[in-house]
Structure formats: C-alpha cells, structure tokens
C-alpha cells in the first residue's frame, strides 16, 4: 500500500521540480499538469474520490488551460528567455530556503508520534458531501459563489484594456 504512495509522491515531486526549473514556459505548464494529476492520484489513493475529480477538472482541465492562455498572450520574444544577471544568485538562495523549510518540516513530521489511523479508507459518498454542502456548510458555499463572481469580474476589469486600441497595436 505504501509502495503506491511512494510512487505517486516521486512522480508528483519529480514533475514539479522539472516544471519549476524549465526555462520554457510551455514545458513548465504541461509538466505541472502532470504534477497536479499526481496530486489527484494521491486523493484517489486516500479514498477522496470527489476531491480527486474536482482536482482533475479544475486544475488539470481549467487552470492549466488558463495558464497556457496567459503564456501565449504574453509571449513576446526570445528576450524573456534570456537569464538575468541576478537570477543565479537568487535561485541559489531560493533553493537554500526551500531545503531549509523542507528539513524543518520533515524533522518535525518524523519526530511526531501520530496515532495509527484506520487501515481502510473512510467511505464518503457524494450524497453525504452534498448533504454537508447544502446543510452545515451552506453559508460557506454561498460565500464561495460570491467570491468566484467577484474574482471573475475583477479579472475582467484588470485584463481589459482602457480606451480604444491604437492602430499599430497588434494585441
């Protein structure tokens, strides 16, 4: 049982590292879609099917497509691909910080004695999730709906151009 978990973890972390270290943005987005699929596989492994399907639909389907659109809309020239002079030092310190955070978290997790959980995954049907969403969590569901609406409106306002387009403007 743990072998599947380790395989999922290696795949997810490997694609994430590859995605964030690539210079080509398109490769990054596609590799990161693989990483999100690995997270969905973990959700399936843990018995949370609904969360896994939501992850696939929203991350692998929607968010990766939106990011791809942003990449294609903002691609200008090879100039963006050229490394900056300060990039190497910043990458070094970023990796140092990431390693330190990972070390602290891993040592803490390793030293904490957790009570053993149930051997079998808990069963949670979609009907039960629906009952929860419409019953105790109804207020949160409404707030999320309002939040999504406001966020979409804000995104449209931010991304829309002000004033008429200039004649020589290709975008």
């Amino acid at each position, binding site marked *: 049982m743990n072998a599947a978990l380790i395989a999922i973890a290696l795949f997810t972390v490997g694609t994430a590292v590859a995605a964030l270290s690539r210079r080509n943005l398109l490769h990054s987005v596609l590799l990161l879609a693989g990483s999100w699929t690995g997270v969905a596989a973990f959700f399936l492994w843990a018995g949370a099917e609904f969360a896994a399907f939501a992850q696939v639909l929203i*991350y692998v389907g929607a*968010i990766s497509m939106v990011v791809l659109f942003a990449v294609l809309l903002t691609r200008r020239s090879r100039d963006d691909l050229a490394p900056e002079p300060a990039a190497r030092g910043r990458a070094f310190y970023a990796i140092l910080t990431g390693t330190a955070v990972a070390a602290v*978290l891993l040592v803490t*997790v390793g030293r904490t004695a957790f009570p053993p959980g149930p051997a079998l995954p*808990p069963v949670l049907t979609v009907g039960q999730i629906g009952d929860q*969403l419409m019953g105790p*969590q109804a207020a949160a569901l409404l707030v999320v709906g309002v939040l999504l609406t406001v966020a979409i409106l804000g995104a449209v306002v931010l991304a829309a151009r002000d004033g008429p387009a200039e004649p020589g403007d290709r975008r």
Partner: protein
Amino acid sequence: MSSLQLCLGFSSVLFAVGLAGALGRSNSIIVLLGLELMLNAANLNFIAFWRFGPAPAAGTGVLFVIFAIAVTAAETAVGLALVIAIYRHQHNIRLAEAVRLKG
C-alpha cells in the same frame, strides 16, 4: 514510518519545491505556479489528516479541500489578469521590472 508520516513528508517536500520556485524565478507566471503548488501541498495535508484522522466520517477534510480548490481558482484568475496587465504596461512579465509602484 507510518503512512500518515509518509503523506506529510510528501506534502512538505511539495511545499518546499513550490516555495523555492516562487522565490527563485523571475517570471511572474512561474511564481504563480509555485503558489499553486504550495496550495496543493496544503490540500494534501487536509486529505491525509482526513484519511488517517480519528473521525473521518464527518468529511471535513474533503469539504475543506473543495473550498480551497474553489478559492485557488479565483486566485489564479485574478493573478493571471494581473500578469496580463503587467505585460500590457511593460511588454514583458519579469517581476524585477514591475517596480512602478515602488516609493
């Protein structure tokens, strides 16, 4: 090492990878993707504690993950709109050059 510790270690490493990506890259889209990775690592923790926790019947972990995914979707939409707005002003998406509002 128990399964729960493996899950938590997995999410810790994923969080650290996202943090390093968000801090170390100068491309604003990659920084956003690093943030997404960190949020995914948090979702992994919710599911892990739901799976191995003492009272999984309530489904709190799954519900939290669903709401977190919805909030992340909103955050991504606004973040990418900001990236496009930055691109319109300075014709590239390097964070180091987006200092127009700096005092």
